[in-house]
């Protein structure tokens, strides 16, 4: 019988190994079983009609290829609807610009390593980031429509909040990852908080921030296409009215325009990203 270095036989080692492997397998198996039970319980608890799934593809096919075809592009590209498309682009542009302007100080305040004051500014920055993130954009839009009235102003402010939550968080993570050497060097010259930020922090994060802002533009634009659903301006209003009238050809026309615009904006931001590289 082979005896190892510490007086453990190979058989012992093998038995030990097997015991652990079997235990791990058992734990994995039990976890999977529990998850399956949980899934079945969910289906039962939420009364999900799984038997309808078999006919789903047929019905979706009928809807997309019969009732939505041919898409009514004339409707989507003339009159009020065309104007609302321009309004959507306008809203997302303004939302990104003002959102980024606000996100810069918030990202600065909310970064633990360079925040001007850890007792006041840091909690403030964090609270703004967390609260704007925790509430979905559509719910923000519904609240702002009540407060500010219908129209693109509510939508623009929703998009500002979306940019704050999305770009602000990523931007403050970038600030937290910077090299502290330059910060200490600038502070050692007696510079104040603002000068430290401008000369030590900004040069380090600038390239990453521009990438984040471009990425953020994409998500802002996508979000802006639906805000009209709750009256916050843009073409979402027409998506809602045409679906409620069951005028799916027109809905499809608008959706097609949205898809084309989203792809165009992605191509644009792809080139912008390549240019800053």
């Amino acid at each position: 019988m082979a005896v190892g270095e510490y007086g453990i036989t190979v058989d012992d080692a093998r038995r030990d190994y097997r015991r652990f492997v079997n235990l791990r397998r058992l734990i994995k198996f039990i976890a999977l079983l529990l998850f399956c039970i949980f899934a079945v319980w969910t289906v039962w608890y939420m009364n999900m009609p799984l038997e309808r799934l078999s006919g789903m593809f047929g019905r979706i096919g009928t809807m997309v290829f019969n009732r939505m075809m041919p898409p009514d592009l004339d409707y989507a590209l003339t009159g009020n609807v065309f104007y609302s498309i321009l309004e959507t682009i306008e809203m997302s542009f303004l939302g990104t610009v003002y959102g980024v302007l606000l996100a810069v100080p918030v990202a600065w305040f909310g970064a633990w390593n360079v925040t001007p004051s850890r007792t006041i500014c840091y909690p403030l920055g964090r609270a703004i980031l967390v609260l704007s993130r925790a509430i979905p954009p559509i719910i923000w839009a519904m609240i702002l429509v009540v407060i500010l009235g219908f129209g693109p102003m509510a939508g623009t402010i929703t998009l500002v909040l979306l940019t704050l939550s999305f770009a602000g968080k990523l931007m403050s993570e970038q600030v937290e990852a910077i090299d502290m050497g330059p910060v200490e060097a600038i502070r050692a010259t007696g510079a104040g908080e603002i000068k430290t930020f401008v000369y030590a922090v900004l040069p380090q994060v600038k390239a990453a921030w521009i990438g984040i802002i471009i990425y953020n533009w994409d998500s802002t634009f996508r979000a802006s296409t639906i805000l009209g659903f709750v009256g916050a301006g843009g073409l979402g209003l027409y998506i809602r009215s045409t679906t409620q009238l069951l005028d799916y050809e027109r809905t499809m026309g608008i959706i097609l325009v949205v898809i084309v615009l989203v792809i165009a904006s992605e191509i644009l931001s792809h080139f912008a990203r390549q240019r800053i590289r």
Partner: protein
Amino acid sequence: MSGIEAADASGINGAGLIGDANPLRPRNTILKRYCLIAGFASVVLVLTAHVFVFQTDWARTGGLGQMLKTAAWFLPNLGYFPSILLALFETFLIALFGTLIGMVIAIPVAVLAARNVTPAGLASYWAGRVTIVLSRSVHELIFALIFVSALGLGPLPGMLALAVRSVGFLAKTTAEAIENIEIGPVEAIEATGAKRMAVLLFAVLPQVFPIFVGNVIFQFDINIRRAAILGMVGGGGIGLIFAEQIMSLAYDRAGTVVLGVVAMVLLGEYISIRIRSWLL
């Protein structure tokens, strides 16, 4: 072009931030930059005036005092909180299973859309890409509308809408991860005479698995927020209650729902941080 100018033109050099602080930069570049900034600022100004002055009915909106008064209507009514707990739990389940179904669909789509492992050349590559673009550019409410009309009201169409909507992000990031894998293990497994499936399983999967799991958790985080609005179009969850309270002008109850959504999102974020540190 000197190295400094090249760095400046790419906008990466730190000194470029201050503009005229860099003596090596020619004058007309500075002028051009100022013109660009001025042009951009005037466009922003015109659009701002259009949206905030001409497109807004200020007589209806009122001044700051009126706005604050309206906002105060949304102060939560805590007595209503217990009755939305079940709906919040349902929303959570919709997000969880929507993400899981989306994850399952995203794996084959990612394999199709990754240039280096796509099975049937350009045709399957473009099939994967188009699926990703469609899923990413159509909002979840529109998917929910389509699924509700095919399956009836309830949480099932909501889950499927979230799943279809998640496919784009998950497949896109995973396809990028597959395109960036190290080729060494792939060649090693191929050298043993392994079939395509075996290569995928033993050379590609281990390399992209951590990225994939991280993205699924991130997507779950996002889907909790998305699930909170699906009820507006009949996709189940808390969204229906919120829309009802807004429409019946019960703003204090709507505020309670918002509070519940915030609590649920924060809880979901906490859970996903825990799962991430446990798995990765």
